[in-house]
């Protein structure tokens, strides 16, 4: 941990895990959607469900979905702002399998009709992990520019993606591969040292066999 993990972050209270971490889960989900969200069905698991209300976890998740960061003074009034910006939200409890006690499942619909299901966990001190996207396991922290490619499990797609990154002089920090079965749905999660250009992300979407591309940029 660096000294600014010790003093900092600047955050809206009360809890770095239940409040600041929850804002970050919402914000990362908003960035992964890459468009305004009009509907969010939010399912709280474990300690998020048990004590989330008193910690403002619900307000924090909605604030993040609206694009707010953990130090935004408007977090306590996020429900009101959601109404103004026409974001419909609902909360329920859920028991998720094999996740951290502070976790949430977010079912999100964007303004273009885009739909995503994201499971995120708050690990403490405001640090978080995205665990699942659209039913497939992923594991990334959001500390790096992250490219998530859903594709059909067949030869060549990893080469397509890594060739593009190489061409753009982007170094891969971490790479993970998952699939639900041979020849089924696969996902690659690539955490990069540099930002991936917008047009390259758009180009990937058109590659045959690629089902969906999500990109998490660290730029505002």
């Amino acid at each position, binding site marked *: *941990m*660096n*000294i*600014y*993990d*010790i*003093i*900092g*972050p*600047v*955050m*809206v*209270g*009360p*809890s*770095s*895990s239940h*409040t*600041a971490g929850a804002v970050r889960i919402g914000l990362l989900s908003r960035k992964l959607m890459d468009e305004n969200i009009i509907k969010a069905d939010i399912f709280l698991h474990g*300690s998020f469900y*048990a*004590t989330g*209300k*008193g*910690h*403002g976890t619900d*307000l924090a998740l909605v604030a993040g979905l609206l694009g707010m960061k953990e*130090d935004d*003074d408007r*977090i*306590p009034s996020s429900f009101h702002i959601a109404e103004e910006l026409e974001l419909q939200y609902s909360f329920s409890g859920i028991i998720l399998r094999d996740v951290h006690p502070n976790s949430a499942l977010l079912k999100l619909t964007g303004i273009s009709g885009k739909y995503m299901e994201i499971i995120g966990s708050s690990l*403490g*001190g*405001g640090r978080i992990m995205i665990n699942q996207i659209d039913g497939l396991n992923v594991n990334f922290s959001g500390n790096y520019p992250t490219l998530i490619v859903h594709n059909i499990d067949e030869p060549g797609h990893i080469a397509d993606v890594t060739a593009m990154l190489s061409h753009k002089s982007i170094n891969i920090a971490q790479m993970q591969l998952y699939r639900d079965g041979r020849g089924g749905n696969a996902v690659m999660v690539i955490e990069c040292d540099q930002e991936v250009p917008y047009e390259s992300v758009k180009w990937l979407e058109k590659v045959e066999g690629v089902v969906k591309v999500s990109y998490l940029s660290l730029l505002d």
Partner: protein
Amino acid sequence: MFKSLSDIIKRIKKTGLPFWEIILEDDSYERQVPKEESWAKMKSLYHEMKLADASYDKNLRSASNLAGGDGAKVSEALEKGEILSGPFMGEVIAKALKMAESNACMKRIVAAPTGGSCGVIPAVLITCEEKLRFSEDKMIEAMFVAAGIGQVIAERAFISGAEGGCQAEIGSASSMAAGAISYLKGGDGNKIIHAAALALKSMLGSTCDPVAGLVEIPCIKRNVMGAVNAVACADMACAGIISRIPPDEVIDAMRETGLALPDSLRETGKGGLAQTKTGKEIKNSIWS
């Protein structure tokens, strides 16, 4: 990145630089940023602390409706001259309560090292600046001292209640604050780390048993204990008292103690104050 407080003292002896500058240099190297950038960041965090202190609103109440307004009561008693420990300590008590209450009421604070312990360091530092008239640069230097101590504690032990109990949160904050005050009082590297050790030692074994799982009971008032303890320990260290157990060994003892704490006393709400008759009643009334 320093793995021990004694390594920091060795570096001070080798370079002749003050404690705070060693930490600043190390951060600049670790994160590969110019020293000016690190300094500016620490300055902005100190400003955020002062802003949070100044924005206290005595009329706010937390989600449970149980927290809020207590800091103002101490300020009132202070104005009437009714605080036995005097104007300095009285202000420390008021400020610690106010910051922790602001946190519970979803106001903006600086985690130091956590949200639950955010009142300790600003309570002592801002009071020192107000009462003893230090320059702002001196205050930023004290922040680096606190951060350096906290980093070693996080490296050797932990800074979250879920891992190590309250001693890891308020105890660490108190230790960091004690070192910072010693620096402000003119203490050298050894006085800084012995103040930190004395403060942490005094809080070993404290548990994390918040009522209804909220960062309210007993967290808010524990911030006062951490702050007052820091002032007393800095005074002791600067008077020439040392910790008979070396500072790094005290941090190791905090880790061992934390690991030995039962699960029920590490932020699970399953023991201690959370499981008292009233604690359970409060929980039921909030979550029903």
